[in-house]
């Protein structure tokens, strides 16, 4: 099944120049793509279109088979709940604890509080933040915040995960570990697009790439045959 389809999509902010031009791409269910390209090339803009933060200036976007242009506005939240997003700047809510930040997508989806407690605790344990469940995000390090943001994005086990530089603030060891978490999710059927500048990870994990340069997009194969799996051991499991 096609999870995301973009046809001749263009995007401009206000009256500025087009930041995305004639973008056409298709993501099948279960795909894992790295989104690469230089800074300012339009990676975040492309992800924003996919998580429905913006409407394209032109072209068609289809998400889970629904044409966004013709989808009723009241139906969009249900589509968004199937998309997990790791924002580039985390966008954690500072007035909430780590636990409540991760629980937020489940609360929005009206999940029972007992289930929320179980799943959030499990996931925070897996990402190594069990001891920081009551901490405010502002008291956490950049890497810890990154993991909270990732946990929030995957807590509802979304069909599509869009991650904007999720390994940008963590060391290589943790970056590999987070990639393993994403791969676990991917094996469970989640389609993943991960924007990154980390060429090492792209080479190591060998997933196909969406390359973006000057607003134009090209779907490409892996950077190199996968030199898969580091020696980082997986602990626990994704909920």
């Amino acid at each position: 099944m096609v999870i995301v389809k973009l046809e001749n999509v263009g995007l401009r902010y206000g009256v500025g120049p087009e930041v995305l031009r004639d973008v056409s791409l298709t993501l099948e269910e279960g795909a894992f793509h790295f989104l690469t390209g230089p800074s300012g090339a339009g990676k975040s803009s492309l992800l924003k279109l996919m998580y429905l933060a913006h409407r394209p200036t032109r072209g068609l976007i289809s998400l889970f088979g629904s044409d966004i242009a013709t989808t009723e506005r009241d139906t969009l939240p249900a589509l968004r709940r199937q998309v997990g997003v790791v924002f580039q700047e985390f966008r954690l809510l500072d007035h909430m604890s780590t636990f409540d930040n991760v629980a937020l997508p489940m609360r929005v989806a009206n999940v029972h509080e007992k289930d929320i407690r179980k799943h959030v605790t499990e996931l925070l344990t897996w990402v190594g933040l069990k001891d920081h469940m009551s901490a405010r995000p502002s008291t956490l390090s950049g890497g810890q915040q990154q993991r909270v943001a990732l946990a929030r994005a995957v807590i509802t086990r979304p069909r599509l995960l869009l991650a904007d530089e999720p390994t940008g603030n963590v060391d290589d060891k943790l970056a590999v570990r987070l990639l393993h978490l994403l791969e676990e999710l991917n094996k469970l059927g989640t389609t993943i697009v991960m924007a990154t500048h980390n060429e090492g990870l792209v080479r190591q994990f060998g997933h196909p790439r969406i390359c973006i340069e000057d607003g134009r997009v090209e779907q490409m194969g892996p950077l190199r045959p996968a030199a898969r799996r580091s020696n980082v051991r997986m602990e626990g499991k994704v909920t």
Partner: protein
Amino acid sequence: MSFLSFNHHKDVPLDKDPGTRFLPWLIAFMVYLAALSVVATAIMQSVSARWERGVSDTLTVQVPPGDSVKQDQTQIAGVLKILRAHPAVVLAEPIARSHVVSLLEPWLGNSRALDNMPLPHLIDVSLRSGMDVDGQQLVDAMNKVAPGATMDDHRVWLDRLIRMSQTLEWGAYIVLSLIGFASIGTVFFVTKTGLAIHQDVIEVLHLIGAQDTYIARQFAEHALNLGLRGGLLGLAAAGPTFAGFGYLYRQIDSALLPDIDIGLWQWVAVMGLPIVAAAMGYLTARVAVLRTLHKMV
């Protein structure tokens, strides 16, 4: 601290907003003024009803003085006979000259000067409640036995008083409406400010799939809380004001100010003002948030 506790998580930290501090006081002031307006309206209704009831079933017949006492007596007897024969008349009694003189004293001086003055004879007439009297026909009949006899149904000054009372009543309604509009406007702009302050939180909620109603409910419940808190505060302040006005009113010794009778429903309306303020806050905040969120993708 929330006044009402809802079984929902508060994702938007509205409790720390500047509006949270001043809105209850503003609502309290509005409810205080609204309570005064409702009671003023009730008083006006009560006063005009009492004035109307007090004089609508009475008439005063005036028989001009004749050339002699005998002629006067004949004319009065004739008029009384006509009046008492009328089916609408319950009672028709002449008013004693001494009483008429005492009524004129404030304007014309002491009674000695009035002793020789030809004064009209007055007859006080009580009517059956709700029965119409053809005034002209009655006057025509009385003029046959007492030429120049006139009848006063007090309508002219009563109408003026009632018109004045109704004008004040409408004034109170207008004040009440203005208070309502001002309150709605205040809650609307406080909510819009809250939306601007918490734009980041709202965007995150929106992007992780929160329905507009999920976000709007948080603002609406917050406004309901503040509205109720402010409403009760305003009502508490209005209580001593009513007691003070009531005390002053009772000190005024005047026939023009009858006893005030405020009905149960009017008191219910006053007591219900905090609930009205809370409901108005809830709806206004909800509409403000939904309108704003509708502009998002």
